[in-house]
């Protein structure tokens, strides 16, 4: 987008602009890198971090000093592996041993790789990999062991999948295979990170006893990516959507990209979204085990982005046509919300769960299942942060009574004073980019109802609500 175009866009989307300003101006990093103390090779590592990661570089650099370098190194190693795996110009005979031996090469002083194709965007990282190796050797032993272990497992997993893809050009068959793939590319990362967090005493050690929660963190992110990237992967002739799911709806994979079959393609994507949402509750549970703010931000931001992305792609035909992304304003709002606490992140999940079910179509065979899943996420959140207590019901009965006149006079004065004060405060705060709750927006939001249909609606309304709601025996 050109600058002018962007300016016009934001002129008509002021709330988005506000979210962006709010994030940029008000977000205070928990920790900051101290560049003065960094060696030349370390600076080079951060340069590559910024080059290779759009979404993660900022949160990584705000991490607790204890984990800043280990996580950066971990990220660069995995990015290095990814750059080899992704590059279709490298033949399998070269690729396989490279992936499998990456955890050994990472110990060889001065090791670099210049075999990437010229168009590979992260090529430079491997060309200067010796800088990464130099810094890697300086990190504490326990962190190093964890990082090496995961690099080993991931390299081998990637090699297995690269071979598979070579042999059978069909792609993933079963849901189990799909999840295995997600495990190699994301679940393992989660495993490594959890071990790093616990080792640094920044997360509850109990997380190590619940590997299923850690696994869900990775699965949720990776599944979201796989669903979102369907068009890109189709163009690259790769397929990660398991046949066990789409085979129920269409005979041929190509059918999903046939504009005349969009309805059915959307139903397939609904089931993919439903499958991914299955991890949402585990993710919230996992985040409850994180003790330190910067680590919380680091894990929560991608999770919030993921559920928002799922909402964006759910029942959205564009997903089969192009690469879609959440709006920048929404992303900034999500980042602001994901850098507070678990309660705020739960609110994000609840908000998006509701938006997802609101997009549902009763003709979609996954309609009820999605509703139950979204309800289940809400229910889970209630189990952590109950919004009601048993006593509340009793308290409601003691109401103070006023006469009508008293009430009116009182109400008038209270409202007048409140109105004046809040107009002043809200106005000032809004201008400064302070965040308001959804109630506020709803208040100003439009809810259009045509009055002429109301009369006919009376008869229509007659019974639907009745009887149904009242079926308890």
């Amino acid at each position: 987008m050109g600058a002018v175009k962007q300016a016009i866009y934001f002129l008509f989307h002021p709330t988005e602009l506000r979210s962006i300003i709010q994030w940029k101006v008000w977000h205070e990093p928990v920790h900051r890198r101290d560049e003065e103390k960094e060696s030349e090779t370390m600076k080079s590592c951060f340069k590559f971090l910024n080059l290779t990661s759009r979404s993660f570089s900022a949160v990584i650099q705000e991490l607790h000093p204890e984990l800043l370098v280990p996580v950066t190194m971990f990220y660069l190693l995995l990015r290095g592996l990814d750059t080899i795996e992704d590059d279709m110009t490298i033949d399998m005979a070269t690729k396989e041993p490279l992936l499998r031996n990456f955890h050994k090469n990472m110990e060889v002083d001065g090791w670099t790789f210049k075999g990437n194709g010229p168009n590979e965007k992260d090529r430079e990282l491997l060309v200067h990999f010796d800088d990464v190796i130099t810094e890697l050797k300086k990190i504490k032993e326990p962190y190093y062991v964890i990082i090496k272990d995961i690099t080993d497992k991931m390299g081998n997993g990637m090699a297995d999948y690269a071979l598979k893809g070579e042999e059978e050009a069909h792609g993933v068959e079963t849901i189990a295979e799909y999840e295995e793939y997600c495990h190699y590319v994301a679940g393992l990362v989660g495993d490594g990170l959890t071990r790093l967090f616990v080792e640094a005493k920044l997360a509850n050690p109990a997380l190590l006893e619940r590997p299923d929660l850690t696994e869900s963190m990775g699965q949720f992110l990776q599944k979201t990516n796989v669903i979102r990237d369907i068009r890109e992967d189709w163009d690259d002739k790769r397929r990660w959507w398991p046949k066990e799911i789409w085979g129920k709806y269409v005979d041929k994979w190509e059918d999903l990209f046939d504009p005349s079959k969009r309805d059915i393609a959307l139903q397939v994507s609904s089931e993919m979204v439903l499958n991914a949402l299955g991890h949402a509750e585990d993710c919230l549970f996992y985040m409850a085990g994180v003790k330190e703010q910067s680590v919380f931000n680091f894990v929560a931001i991608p999770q919030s982005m993921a559920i928002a992305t799922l909402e964006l792609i759910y029942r959205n035909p564009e997903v089969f046509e192009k690469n879609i992304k959440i709006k920048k304003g929404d992303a900034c709002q999500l980042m602001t919300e994901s850098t507070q606490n678990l309660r705020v992140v739960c609110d994000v999940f609840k908000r998006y769960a509701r938006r997802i079910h609101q997009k549902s179509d009763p003709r979609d065979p996954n309609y009820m299942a999605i509703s139950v899943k979204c309800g289940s996420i809400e229910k889970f959140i209630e189990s952590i942060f109950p919004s009601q207590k048993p006593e509340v019901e009793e308290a409601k009965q003691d109401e103070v009574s006023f006469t009508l006149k008293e009430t009116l006079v009182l109400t008038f004065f209270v409202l007048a004073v409140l109105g004046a004060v809040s107009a002043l405060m809200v106005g000032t705060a809004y201008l400064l980019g302070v965040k308001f709750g959804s109630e506020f927006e709803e208040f100003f939001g439009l809810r259009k109802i045509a009055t002429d249909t109301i009369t006919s609606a009376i008869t229509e309304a007659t019974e639907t609500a009745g009887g149904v709601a009242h079926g308890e025996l």
Partner: protein
Amino acid sequence: MATKKAVIPLGRVMVIGGCGFLGHHVVNMLLRDHQTTSISVVDLKCISNRRPDSDGVKYFDCDITNLAALTSVFEEAKPNVVIHTASPTAQGSGASAHALFKKVNVDGTICVIEACQKTGVTALVYTSSASIISDNKNDLIYADERWPVIRGKAQTEYYAETKAAAEELVLKANRQDPYKLVTSSIRPAGIIGEGDRQAIYHTVNIYKEGRTGFQIGNNDNLFDFTYVENVAHAHLLAAQALLVTTSNSVVPLDHERVDGEAFLITNDSPTYFWDFIRTVWSHAGSPLGTDHVWHLSRDLGYVLGALSELFCAMLRKPPTFNRQRTVYSCMTRYYNITKAKSRLGYRPLVPLEEGIKRAVKWSLEKQEKEQ
């Protein structure tokens, strides 16, 4: 679904209201999943939902408010477990409906308790209702058994008031010397299934009449519905647990006891109110999405309900739509069933959507036959 029969034998089981909606499912499950010595059914008139004679179920026509008659049935059938499901349908207002609620739910239950005590019954499981903790206007969000039962003036539904009164009596009868009777109460929320002429049957009707084109409220309100077999299952789990309790010499610890306790039972799948309704319509054959749907706010629905009440009052006929129904369709009402899970080992056997499918199929067939 369990193909193997449950381990704990139930002995001689009596189902009161065993020809009714819930009761006949209890009978079916007893035959299918449980070891019993005999099964007897008490109902006002044992006509509908009867098992074939080959199943060996004994049917007794009896008014449960007649203590003498009921006691003689008990003496003949000699049950050691009684499942008391009898209740009139919750629909209806006015003095005659209220009198019936009181008579069957309260007076009938008093007789059942007395008959149990006199004839040496071991375990009594009573069908209460999750609605007894609702005041029918405020939301219930993930409510559990700690929530107070709403009684008296605060309880706007007289039906719920009578169910609550009966539950209180049943639970008070637990471990009352010199009787060996132990009791539990099951509080199901929104039962659906084959044989139900209320919830799903009614909703299917609305589709048939082509009135699917509107929605009151924003549809973000979660609601609990429960498939009838799951409710029946919970009753039988409670019966088993009560038998185990009495066979132990020590009184159980507070956090694991079943006797004298009430249990909320749902499908553990709260769904958004209108999503549920539309799922029913889809299974009934509706080809429509949501494009044709008018969204009315809760407040507008309330005003319409009031107008309808006024209008009908002028015409002197009972309103089919009213403010309370608007409130129900906009209300959040779902429960936390952790207690039933941990103490009874309850898990819903049939998922909600499967339950809806079966209930819709039954309703469609029924409506077909009646045309």
